[in-house]
Structures are given as structure tokens and as C-alpha cells.
């Protein structure tokens, strides 16, 4: 029978091969699902892996969706490496969007272009504030950050709902629950005409470099990770676990808030009840599939973006529910976790009973 045997050292090969194998397993399961539903699996694969990359415009759209995922996942990578389990990035994203939207609503015809900077910073601050609540409750009361950050996602949705149904509702909006469309000056600048790719992508890629330098080239980045891997070693070295906790949550909250600002002042352009998009949850998968490494996360963010676009196309062209994206996202994370077993263990055939 098959038996798992502990490796003396974690396998370097499987560290990189496991996400690839996980993707292959997910694709295989996906093909099975298409066949089961009586859909042409080749056409299904085409929606997910060819349509999103087949033209310059499609590639642009791929980047538009990958940007928020990349930004949030970068923050989560820092957070998870510190062994802090912030799973409420979705809520921080929403509050970031609300804060950014609040500033954008203050702009009028005379406002200068500088307002964009304030909009973005407000988003970051909003996300940091929301994550800060979790950090404070964990720091002062030892409340479990998983549950608190998750509960705050629901609260964030209510805050957004209250504002767009109440005080911030557009008076000229035929009673629709939405704010007025933001002034053009608040719009995140686009990189080129004919594509929706914005400066956000540049910010995200700068973030990749920044997180890489922080994690692998600075003392505080090192301290952050030691605290995650070996708390007692970190204590012995004099690294503060409280500082690590705050830094982890504020970084990931700020990143999620930034993503919220980029979305609401970018492709969306107003606050609606549909701001919560699930990006905050999908980014958890992005962070994991990217091995919590900034470069890896670039690839996984693009992959997850393909899942989103593929899901939308599968809905419009093949009559499949859009939620197929969520199914594939979940399957991918499941397969990855299972494949990661191969990093620490080796599979051995053993005859008879051991």
C-alpha cells in the first residue's frame, strides 16, 4: 500500500512543482466537471486559458482584474509569513473603497487633479483602520484574529449598505442604492487609451519589489518571519511579537484598502452595494498558490484573474453559472495543499501491511 515517509529535508523541487501539479489537477477536475454537465470541455478550457490572453485588449482586461488580487495578496503574504491569520481582507477592501469613495464624493468641478492622491491614501487608511481593529482586539484582548477579521467582513458590508442606501445615496439616482458618479478628476489615471489598465498596475508592481526587499533584505522583514516560524526563537532574539502583529495587520489591511480605492476610483467610479467582489477571499488563494513569495504571487494573480474572466465568459457563452469561478478557486487551493504534502513527505509503495 502507499505510505508517506518523512523526508529528511523539505524538497526544493516540489516547492515549485507543487503549484504546477495542483493547477493540472484542477484542470483535470474542471474537464471532468464540464463533461459531467454535458458541455464541450475543450471549449471550456478555451474560455479560461485562451480567450483571456488572445488579444492586446483581452490581456489588458486580464491585468485590470489581476491588479487588485496582486495588491491584496502581497499584503497577505507579509501577514501570513508572520503567522497572523487575517482572513478579513474582503472587509478591509470594502472599507478602503468606502473611505476612498467618501473623499471622491467631496470633489467638485473646480477640484484639482491632486485629489487622486488623497483618494488613494484615504483607501489605504481605511483598510488599515479596519485591520487595526482586529490587531487591537488581538493585542489587548487576545481575541482570535481569524474570527474577528472574518466577522468584520459582514460589518463592513453593512457599513457600505448603510451609506449607499442612506446618507450617501445619489439624490438624482432614481432611488437606486448608489452614490453619484465620481468626478472625472478623481479617476485613477489610465496608462494608455483603449485599455482600462491604470496606474494601479504600476503601483502593484512597485509593491512586488517593495515586499521582496522588505521580506528578504531588511532586518525587520526577517524579524517578522522568524516570529511566524519560531515564536520562541523570535522572543529570545528580542523581536517584539506585538510589533509583528500590528505590522502584519496594518500592512495587509493597507494593501486591501489600496485595492479597494483603485477599484472604486478606477473601473467602478461610484459606490454601490456590489463593491464586495470576493477579491479579498480570492487573494488568500493567490497568496498561497504564489508560495507567499512576491514573484510567485504575480503569476498566481494572473492565473486567478483568468479564472474570473473565464467564469464570466463561461456564463455568457456557455450558459454556465458564474460561480464556477469559485468552484475552481476552491479546488485549486485544495489541490495545492494536498500536493504540498509531497514537499515534506515522499510516497513509497510498501508490500503487505506495515
Amino acid at each position, binding site marked *: 500500500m502507499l505510505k*508517506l515517509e*518523512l523526508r529528511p529535508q523539505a524538497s526544493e523541487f516540489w516547492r515549485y512543482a507543487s503549484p504546477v501539479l495542483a493547477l493540472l489537477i484542477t484542470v483535470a477536475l474542471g474537464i471532468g466537471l464540464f463533461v459531467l454537465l454535458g458541455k464541450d470541455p475543450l471549449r471550456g478550457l478555451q474560455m479560461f486559458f485562451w480567450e483571456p490572453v488572445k488579444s492586446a485588449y483581452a490581456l489588458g482586461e486580464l491585468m485590470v482584474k489581476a491588479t487588485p488580487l496582486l495588491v491584496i495578496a502581497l499584503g497577505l503574504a507579509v501577514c501570513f509569513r508572520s503567522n497572523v*491569520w487575517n*482572513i478579513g481582507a474582503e472587509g478591509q477592501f470594502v472599507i478602503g473603497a468606502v473611505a476612498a469613495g467618501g473623499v471622491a464624493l467631496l470633489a467638485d468641478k473646480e477640484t484639482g487633479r491632486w485629489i487622486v492622491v488623497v483618494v488613494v491614501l484615504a483607501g489605504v487608511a481605511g483598510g488599515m483602520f479596519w485591520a487595526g481593529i482586529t490587531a487591537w*482586539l488581538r493585542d*489587548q*484582548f*487576545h*481575541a*482570535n484574529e*481569524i*474570527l*474577528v477579521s*472574518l*466577522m*468584520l467582513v*459582514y*460589518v463592513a458590508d*453593512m*457599513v457600505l*449598505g*448603510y451609506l449607499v*442606501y*442612506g446618507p450617501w445615496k445619489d439624490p438624482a439616482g432614481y432611488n437606486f442604492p448608489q452614490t453619484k458618479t465620481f468626478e472625472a478628476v478623481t479617476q485613477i489615471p489610465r496608462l494608455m487609451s483603449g485599455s482600462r489598465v491604470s496606474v494601479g498596475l504600476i503601483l502593484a508592481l512597485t509593491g512586488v519589489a517593495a515586499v521582496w526587499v522588505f521580506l528578504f533584505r531588511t532586518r525587520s522583514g526577517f524579524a517578522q518571519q522568524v516570529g511566524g516560524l519560531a515564536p520562541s526563537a523570535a522572543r529570545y532574539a528580542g523581536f517584539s511579537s506585538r510589533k509583528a502583529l500590528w505590522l502584519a495587520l496594518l500592512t495587509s489591511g493597507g494593501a486591501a484598502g489600496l485595492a479597494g480605492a483603485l477599484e472604486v476610483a478606477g473601473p467602478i467610479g461610484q459606490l454601490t452595494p456590489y463593491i464586495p467582489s470576493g477579491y479579498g*477571499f480570492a487573494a*488568500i*488563494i493567490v497568496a*498561497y498558490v504564489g508560495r507567499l513569495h512576491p514573484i510567485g504571487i504575480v503569476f498566481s494573480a494572473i492565473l486567478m484573474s483568468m479564472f474570473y474572466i473565464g467564469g464570466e465568459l463561461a456564463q455568457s457563452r456557455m450558459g454556465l*453559472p458564474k*460561480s*464556477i*469561478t*469559485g*468552484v*475552481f*478557486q*476552491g*479546488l485549486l*487551493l*485544495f489541490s495545492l*495543499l*494536498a500536493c*504540498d*504534502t509531497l514537499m*515534506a*513527505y515522499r510516497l513509497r509503495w510498501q508490500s503487505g501491511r506495515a
Partner: protein
Amino acid sequence: MESYALLIAATLNAGTVLAIAALGLLINEKVGVVNLGAEGMMLCSAIAGFAAVVHTGSDLLGFLAGMGAGALLGAIFGVMVIYLGTNQYATGLALSLFGVGFSAFVGISYVQEKLPPRLQFEIPFLADIPLLGAAFFKQHPLVYGVIAFAMALIWFFYKTRTGLVLRSVGESPESAHALGYSVRRIRFLAVMVGGALCGLSGAYISVVYTPLWVEGMVAGKGWIALALTTFATWRPARILLGAYLFGGVTMLQFHLQGLGVQVPSQFLSALPYLATIVVLAMISRNPVWIRVNMPASLGKPFHPSS
């Protein structure tokens, strides 16, 4: 007065949803396994139970379908964290994310479906008592069932040998292993039972509590049930108490709206989540107390050869 009787009745009903799931999660955690996938398991079971009732017309089959779906997902989770040694938090999270997507995917054709007329339950004679009858004796059988189950669980954990073995697996898997108990098999079975109970809770939501199917209808109850196990410091009776407390908070919003209290409805809807945060912070304030009560191996994998 009549409205207070209805408020109590609704509180018991809402508390039952949380209690069934939280008792299942308690069984998991007593053997040292945290399953963050509760929300996903409950959603999948909710649609499984709902679909079963739509097709067969039998509530009982609906509950069984929900339990089956929950046990199956629990088994997948169990194989991964117990036999493959994956991280419990990450795997549970994967289960929740998968469950949200999968239930929405499967459930899309059931959104408009209606269930056969719901039965009204009442206990003969007792139900006719003014006020008390409406408050306590016109409930679904599971409302009483969960109380009996919690009592049975107390007896099982603290008065039987098997219960003792279960607790020892959670407190010190090494000792249980040395005594010749198969730690991994016991954990696996407990995880499946926990999954089945989360499944029952999910099916109760879509078949009895709000008899319809809407995407994401569990609305965080799985997470609240997870918080309840900490709140109850891993004691079955306190879980029951906590579940009714949270059930009451959930129902209070409708009651306050009915009374015409001038508060934004979103604030009232956020109450159960805010209450969970506040209670969690209050309970966790004393880390020593939590550590004394928490199963010692909670969240830690066990490999027999190590």
C-alpha cells in the same frame, strides 16, 4: 406580551441552528482538530438538504442528505489534515471558499424552487398554555432534540470510557497513541461526525429555519458557531447557552424593527457579528483561562512515527 412569546420562540429556533453546528465543531475540537470549513460545509449541506426535499418531499431525507454532504466534506477535510498533514487553518479555509462557490454553482437551478407546505409542530396540551405554549411548545422536534443531544454529549464526554479516550486524544495525542489508541482514526471519525452535525445545521437552515435556497444563505453562522466553541470554553452546556444568546441577538433586530426603533436596519443586521466580536474579546481577555480549558493539541497535526 404575545410578541415576547414569539420572540422567545424565534430565539430558540435561531439558537438551534447555531447549537447543532457548534456541538459538531466541539466534537472536532475535543480531539484536537479545528475545522474552519464550517461555513462551507453548512452551505453545501443547505443546498443538498433543500434539493432532497424538493425532489422527495420528505424533510427527513433532506436532513439525511444534509448530514451526508457534511460528513463527506468532513471526510475530505479529515483525509487532508489528519493523513496528509496539511495545515488545519488553510485547509478549513479552502473548504469554506470551495463550499461558497460550489453551493452557489449547484444551487442556481433551485433559486426559484418552493418546498411542499411546512408542517406546524406542537406538543399536545402544553401548546395550549397561554404565552408559554407559544414560546416553548410549538417548535420543530430538532429544537428539543438538540437539548437532549447536548445532555447526551455531556454524559458521553465526562462519564464514559470512550468519551475519556476522545478527550485524551485532544489533550495528549502522544499518550493516547502510547496506550494503543489509533489517534488518527479517532480524529477522522470525530471530524466526520462533526461534519455531519454541521450538515444537519445547514439543512435545518434551508428546510426549516428559512425554507428556501439563496446563495450564501448561511450568512456567517458557521463562523459564529466556531466562535461559540471558544465562548463556551469547550463545554457542551455553555454552547447551548451561548447559542440561545446569539439566537436572541439575531432575533432582537426583527423585534426592534417591529417596535419601530429608529436605528438604521444595517446596524441591527450587524448586531450578531458585532456581538460575536465583543463576546470573543471578553472571553479571551484572560489567556490563562482559555489555555486551561482548550484541548491542548488543538490545531496541531499528529504523525504516529514522530
